[in-house]
């Protein structure tokens, strides 16, 4: 009987099951060693004091003592445990905005009010501002109301933004007729505003230009955008918004009398972008009212065809440099998120070294239309190789890994992390070395001298070799791989046969 050994060396190692445990243990020892080493020899580079202000002008940072600004308070402990850099909530007494994670002295030096615990003045509630609502603090509500010339209407019992918005959505609106001097005039507003603020007579769903009201407001051909609304509206001589702009209804008395809904207005199912005849813009379809001087139009917010697909306003999608997912990533590549906004395509880079990966979900709106949403999210690859079961490996709540089953069981990062492989540092080597494997193939010679494979015969196949390559490149920028400019890399992968 003869044994042959195939050894695959990358710069690291997942291997046959028996070896795997040993190598993992070895790596742990190696990592422990690195940690010990780091704490010892890199002591000067690691944060060692909490510094009130650094030489570069940043507040409350854990940095080496040499980086502390002259005269700045410092303590040989973490900032979390110091009194001078204690973090808490900083509220703005004028605007009512609040920020957390703010050191006390930074807050107070800027005129804020600091507190360690969440302060009541930072509690959000529903602020009704005429026909609109904002989910803000009470102080902010007062500031907003004052800036709009309204009395403060704050409800702290409403605890969610959706509830807050819905609370004003159903308000009755109509013409509020009142006397101004010797004239009867009108304001299109809510019933509550008419009764409490203007103290006029309210006519539900009636426009101020309705003849029966006898107010001094008359139709015009002017158009305007209305705050909080997507559509282009006609405006009357009193400055009130009327129905949605429809060029065919300019002189239509009925259209200037009764308030019509969006669905009852012109072309309600279209975006009406750039339309000269219909101002029924639809934000969800990619158009919105924009004012240009005295006229308003529905402008197109969509981006048209981008990278081969039609992209609408608000849509975002992932862009990869080369292959991505299930352990595939080009060396040196990163992920990108593109967003279509206001007719422009904006590019967001996910974190370097693929410490963030781009994830995308597609929603089918119709047979022909898909709406994509993407996000750069943390790539949780760190503990993939420690997982021993498929369930643990593919637990999406904890990590971003995939499982290889069959003759070789391995849990690997879905998106391999980028490594500073050009530095030839020990860490890169230790990560890549997890892919090292040894497979011992057992042959039996018969009496004629012919060899017959008896054990681990699969290790001689191209499939097994390809699997090992996949494991290797899944661990990071390791092994045989192409780089982000599609050049094939050389080295980093060896197959050694012996025996």
């Amino acid at each position, binding site marked *: 009987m003869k044994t042959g050994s195939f050894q695959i060396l990358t710069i690291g190692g997942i291997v046959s099951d028996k070896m795997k445990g040993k190598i993992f243990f070895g790596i742990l020892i190696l*990592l422990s060693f690195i940690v010990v080493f780091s704490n010892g020899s890199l002591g000067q580079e690691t*944060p060692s004091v909490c510094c009130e202000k*650094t030489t*570069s*002008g*940043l*507040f*409350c*940072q*854990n*940095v080496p003592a040499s980086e502390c600004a002259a005269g700045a308070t410092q303590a040989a402990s973490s*900032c979390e445990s110091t009194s001078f*850099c204690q*973090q808490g909530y*900083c509220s*703005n007494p*004028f*605007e009512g*905005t609040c*920020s*957390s*994670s*703010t*050191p006390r002295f*930074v807050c107070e030096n*800027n*005129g*804020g009010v600091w507190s360690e615990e969440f302060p009541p003045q930072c509690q959000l509630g529903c602020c009704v501002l005429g026909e609109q609502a904002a989910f803000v603090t009470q102080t902010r509500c007062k500031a907003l109301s004052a*800036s*709009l010339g309204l009395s403060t209407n704050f409800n702290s019992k409403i605890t969610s933004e959706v509830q807050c918005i819905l609370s004003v959505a159903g308000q009755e609106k109509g013409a509020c007729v009142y006397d101004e001097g010797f004239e009867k005039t009108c304001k299109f507003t809510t019933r509550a505003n008419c009764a409490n603020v203007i103290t006029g007579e309210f006519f539900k769903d009636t426009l101020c230009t309705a003849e029966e009201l006898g107010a001094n407001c008359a139709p015009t051909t002017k158009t305007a955008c209305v705050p909080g609304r997507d559509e282009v509206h006609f405006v009357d001589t009193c400055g009130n918004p009327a129905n949605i702009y429809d060029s065919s209804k300019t002189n239509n008395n009925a259209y200037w009398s009764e308030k019509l809904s969006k669905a009852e207005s012109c072309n309600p199912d279209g975006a009406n972008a750039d339309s000269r005849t219909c101002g029924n813009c639809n*934000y969800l379809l990619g158009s*919105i009212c*924009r004012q240009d001087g005295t006229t308003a139009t529905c402008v197109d*917010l969509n981006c048209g065809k981008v990278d081969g697909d039609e992209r609408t306003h*608000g849509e975002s999608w992932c862009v990869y440099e080369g292959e991505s997912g299930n352990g595939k990533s080009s060396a040196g590549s990163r992920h990108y998120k593109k*967003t279509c*906004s*206001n007719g*422009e395509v*904006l*590019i*967001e*880079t*996910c*974190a*370097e*070294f693929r*410490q963030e990966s781009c994830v995308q979900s597609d929603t089918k709106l119709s047979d022909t239309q898909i709406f994509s*949403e993407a*996000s*750069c999210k*943390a790539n949780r690859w*760190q503990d993939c190789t420690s997982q021993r079961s498929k369930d643990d490996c593919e637990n999406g709540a904890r990590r971003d890994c995939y499982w290889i089953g069959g003759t070789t069981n391995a849990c690997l990062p879905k998106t391999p*992390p980028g*490594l*500073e492989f050009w530095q030839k540092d020990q*860490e*890169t080597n230790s*990560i890549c070395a997890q892919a090292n494997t040894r497979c011992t193939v057992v042959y039996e010679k018969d009496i004629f001298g012919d060899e017959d494979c008896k054990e681990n015969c699969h290790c001689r196949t191209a499939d097994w070799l390809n699997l090992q390559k996949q494991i290797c490149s899944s661990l*990071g920028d390791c092994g045989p791989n192409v780089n982000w400019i599609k050049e094939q890399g050389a080295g980093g992968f060896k197959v050694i046969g012996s025996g």
Partner: protein
Amino acid sequence: VKENSSRRGQNNYKRVLIDFKMSKRGQVAIFVIVALVIVGVLVVVFGFSDSEGDLFQGDEANPEGFLKSCLEPELKKNSQTLALQGGYRNPEGFIIDNGDKIKYLCYTSEYYETCVVQQPLLKEHFEKELSAMIDAKADSCLKTLETEYEKRGYEITIGEGDSEVKTSQGKISVILDSPVTVEKESVQEFDTFEVGVESNMYELLLVSSSMIELEAVYGDAETSLYMRYYPDLNMEKTKLSDGTTIYKIENVITGEEFRFASRSLAWPAGFE
């Protein structure tokens, strides 16, 4: 006949040539005159005219209008300079991006940690910085106002005072808190002047503050949601290799932009 006609032809040719030369000279002269007129107009418009606007339109004095046209360019210029540097004239603790210093409004030097807020009350800080930047110009505008009144035979007294900048929905205002008394046939008294310039900086500052809060709590601010809520805003987010994120928030209608940097929840390459 042929000779005559050829002579006539020669004469005609000469006349045409002379006419041509004359018309060419004439054209050159006209061009020169037109050029001089244009240059003159430009000199008058940009050189001698009062770039700060006229104080008097007819017999009526309009000091607020005068101060507005005097302060507006400076206000806009400085506001934009501040906005591109995270709200700081001379930022400390910044990152350089394409030659611009961008202030870290939230920062941690460590890996795996969320940032520490470096500038709470951003709006108030922006107002203070802008106020300091236009203080000298505000004084100079008041001086010019004084001169303009005096030229018209008015007696004017300008009291000591401060200038203050306030940002609010849709505008940036400068409040000149200097009592002014103007006297000729009658006495006019002004306690303060408020000069307002259209701007959406207030909205940009509040949105930025909200994003800083997300950076401090979650280590990241998702821009897509903001863009959906604020249809007039475009946001760009660039992540650098050291873990810094640069945010650029632009109002697509006014073109105003606010930039700031943050370093929060940064990861190193590998484990570290």
